[in-house]
């Protein structure tokens, strides 16, 4: 054999009632088509999650075909309409990741269209063959962990987080937002079990995933036990035993991030840039934008307009005479992977990001996403040592610029209340800059009952375990915000915005008027107030 011809591996999802029947008909009719596709039967195309597509690609598929009934013919009335929306979104995400939308195809094939099925197979195989192999690296099989070592691992986590300092006072439980609604959960129980040497259940215990890592416990613990660090450490161990989280969007987010970690292809994540925004390739100030572009695609159906945030940030900086570096080479910071047990991916992402920033020559990196800032400031530096560039949140930057007289605002802004996100507040200790920034923008800041280090959580972290408790937490928070009489709830974190507005959009048992407060991002509010 001289030259091996590339034979694409294709996954084809077929709905039971139309496409699968169409494939049957193709068979009965002895219609020939290439052997590359492996068919997976599903009851409806509506069942196909974007995650399936990305996971297939990550695991080595070169193309993914999704087939369903024609619009209007769905056995389940409108399943295929949902599928169409999702697949469009998936295609957008694939474009942004640089994998490209043409590695997948959505086709409507009825039970009578055996011919069409065979033709689609042929065409799609050729299409993929033309594209060449999937650019993502092949996944090596994971090594099986040694359960006998769990105890050592746990001891290391105890050492690492100072859990030996726990005096069992229970204060952590009293402030834990999850414990409020889930009586079976308490931060100290997690720690105490480990200290007692009861560690086998890491493999099965769901408490690890119940925690929202909001660090209310950390901030209250008199002895500074790092409960969230403890949980994170346990998660890294738990996933090795397939004790994995229930992720939002079926794990799509994590998939997108993991692909970013592994992929070498060029993304297109700067599609939010508008022509009036001045940015540069090299310079003193780097603006790390985060994954808004992806979120905008994924939440296409929701009126979030997250792209407005980086736009606002650049606008603010431009106004102050700063032309920031923004880079298409930046990748996800790895926060969500790190907090769902995948430290390896974090390290890969870290390497890419740090290289990108170093290449830009920046002395200062500005973040509008507190998770990115936390990950850089704490996790990256923990691993890599101190960076030689400064890291600030946009609110800190605005605070400084105002003090330097470089920003001017219009008079007469609204009455607002500020949501301290856990990463910005308790994790990073940034409380005053956002408030100062808002006040500078002539907004009247009123406080919710629980504010600053007591701020309530938006209910979900790292896209894991969005459940009944999350919903209750979100409602609690929205009620507090509404009670202040503020016209607007300002958040400093993309995730708070996404999660809290989700609670408003979804049906909750709570009367609408108790929670319907507009939610806006801090940078957007600031930018709007610029003179």
């Amino acid at each position, binding site marked *: 054999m001289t030259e091996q011809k590339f034979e694409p591996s294709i996954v084809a999802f077929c709905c039971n009632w139309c496409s699968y029947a169409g494939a049957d008909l193709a068979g009965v009719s002895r219609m020939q088509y290439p052997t590359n596709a492996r068919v997976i039967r599903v009851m409806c195309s509506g069942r196909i999650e974007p995650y399936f597509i990305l996971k297939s690609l990550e695991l080595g598929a070169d193309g993914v075909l999704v087939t369903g009934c024609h619009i209007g013919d769905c056995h389940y009335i409108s399943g295929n309409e949902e599928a169409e929306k999702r697949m469009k979104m998936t295609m957008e995400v694939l474009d942004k990741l640089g994998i490209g939308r043409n590695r997948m195809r959505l086709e409507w094939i009825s039970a009578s269209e055996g011919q069409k099925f065979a033709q689609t197979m042929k065409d799609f195989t050729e299409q993929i063959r033309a594209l060449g192999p999937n650019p993502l690296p092949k996944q090596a099989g994971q090594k099986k962990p040694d359960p006998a070592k769990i105890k050592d691992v746990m001891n290391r986590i105890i050492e690492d987080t100072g859990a030996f300092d726990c005096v069992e006072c229970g204060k952590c*439980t*009293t*402030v834990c937002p999850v414990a*409020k609604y889930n009586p079976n959960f*308490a931060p*100290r129980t997690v720690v*105490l079990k480990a200290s007692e040497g009861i560690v086998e259940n890491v493999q099965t215990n769901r408490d690890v995933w119940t925690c929202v890592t909001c660090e209310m416990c950390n901030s209250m613990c008199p002895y500074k036990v790092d409960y969230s660090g403890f949980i994170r450490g346990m998660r890294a161990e738990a996933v090795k035993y397939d004790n994995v989280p229930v992720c939002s969007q079926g794990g799509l987010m994590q998939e997108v991030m993991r692909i970013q970690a592994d992929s070498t292809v060029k993304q297109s994540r700067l599609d939010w840039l508008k022509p009036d925004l001045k940015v540069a390739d090299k310079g003193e100030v780097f603006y790390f934008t985060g994954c808004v572009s992806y979120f905008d695609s994924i939440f296409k159906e929701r009126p979030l307009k997250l792209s407005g945030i980086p736009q606002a940030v650049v606008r603010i900086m431009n106004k102050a005479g700063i032309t920031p570096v923004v880079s298409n080479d930046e990748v996800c910071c790895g926060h969500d992977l790190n907090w769902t047990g995948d430290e390896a991916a974090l390290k890969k992402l870290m390497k890419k990001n740090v290289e990108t920033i170093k290449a830009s020559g920046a002395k200062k990196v500005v973040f509008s996403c507190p998770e990115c800032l936390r990950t850089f400031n704490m996790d990256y530096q923990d691993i890599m040592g101190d960076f030689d560039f400064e890291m600030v949140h946009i609110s800190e930057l605005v605070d400084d610029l105002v003090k330097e007289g470089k920003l001017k605002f219009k008079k007469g802004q609204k009455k607002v209340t500020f949501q301290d996100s856990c990463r910005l507040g308790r994790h990073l200790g940034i409380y005053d800059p956002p408030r100062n920034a808002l006040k500078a923008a002539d907004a009247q800041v009123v406080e919710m009952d629980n504010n600053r280090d007591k701020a309530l959580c938006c209910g979900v972290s790292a896209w894991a375990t969005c459940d009944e408790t999350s919903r209750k937490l979100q409602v609690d928070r929205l009620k507090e915000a509404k009670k202040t009489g503020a016209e607007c709830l300002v958040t400093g974190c993309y995730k708070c915005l996404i999660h809290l507005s989700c609670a408003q959009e979804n049906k909750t048992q709570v009367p609408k008027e108790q929670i319907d407060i507009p939610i806006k991002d801090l940078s957007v509010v600031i930018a709007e107030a610029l003179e």
Partner: protein
Amino acid sequence: MTKDVMVIGGGIAGIQAALDLADKGMIVHLVEKTPSIGGRMAQLDKTFPTNDCSICILAPKMADCFSHPNTNVITYAEVVGVEGKVGSFKVKVLKKARYVDETKCTGCGECLEKCPSKVPSEFEMGLSNRKAIYMPFMQAVPRVMTIDKEHCTMITKGKCGNCKKACKREAIDYEMKDKILELEVGAIVVATGFDSWDPSSATEYGYGRYPNVFTALEYERMINAAGPTHGHIERRSDKKRPIKMAFIQCVGSRNPQVGHPYCCSVCCMHSTKESMLAREHHDDMESTIFYKDMRACAKGFWEYIERAKRDYGVRYVNSDATVQENAETHNPIVVYDVGGRQQSEEFDMVVLATTLVPRKETLELAKVLGLKADEFGFLESSERILEFGKTVVPGIYLAGYAAGPADIPESVAQGSSAAAKAVEAIVQAGG
């Protein structure tokens, strides 16, 4: 060389030291910062573990201390400079202008009626008001008035003068000036006592935000028959008497996060006492104490706890606690942890056992005297084990809470002990 001794601080430790010295024939200059001696003990209602009435046992000591032929009680004064060494310290004392002639004032109180101002009373922990001319409390020693120059409009703006008109003894003198007294003493005893930490910065307890959350010292004033509510326990929100009381321990203490990793030594006991007193006031009152470790470890203390449980129905819950509020009723909701389960329970009133911290001014004084203070502001003994109370400066000794958490009997013993050390030093120095 002089046999005189100075005692700084007129609380129970200082009073004990002064009396012990004066009784031995030494001349004692007792310097007290506030207008009256008595210190914190004067604010307490009862004392554990005997439930003795605090002022009943303290007042005679205050009177003794003031009228003792060998004492010179200098109130409303501060030590501002020290030179010299054991046997002959030259001490500068700033005697703040009181604007009232101590020799003329009889403490009759006619001036009080005429004074138009209202100032939160320090002695009543701000639960009631005093006037700009005032006596901190009824049993104050000396029984004379003081004008608080910050709040007196005559002194600040030259307007009013009512008290002067009211005073038949012509004791009021708006022109009075601060004076510096120079005293020579052979030894010095420092007993500057404690302050109560303001828990409003620890927002998890809601103090200052939720009306029905009180500090222990506020509660102590409230249950005192001579206090601002005449001994009635009242909620701030509606003046109603509470039935369900919660006492939360270690508020700010045993907490390195807020800078007080230490244990105050007395709170477990005073909260127990306060719970018992609640029940003594009204049969239907129920108290719950939330604690980390029940530190009842001096003579008769554990038995006291047992008695509180058995005879007074005090409930003890081994958990730290934080406070939320029922916004409608203003009932505090205490959140705690039993066996790793979050519980919340509504109470009518919450009393916080706040950290007792050394007085801020103690650090200033330490600088003046050349003493060492630890990171929390407690004055340090040079040799902790066998010479507690001896400092790096020969001739200067410590007593009471300023030298580390101590309850009343310990403070009294330390006061006597410091007195003994002062005498030893003077005798050894050849005085």
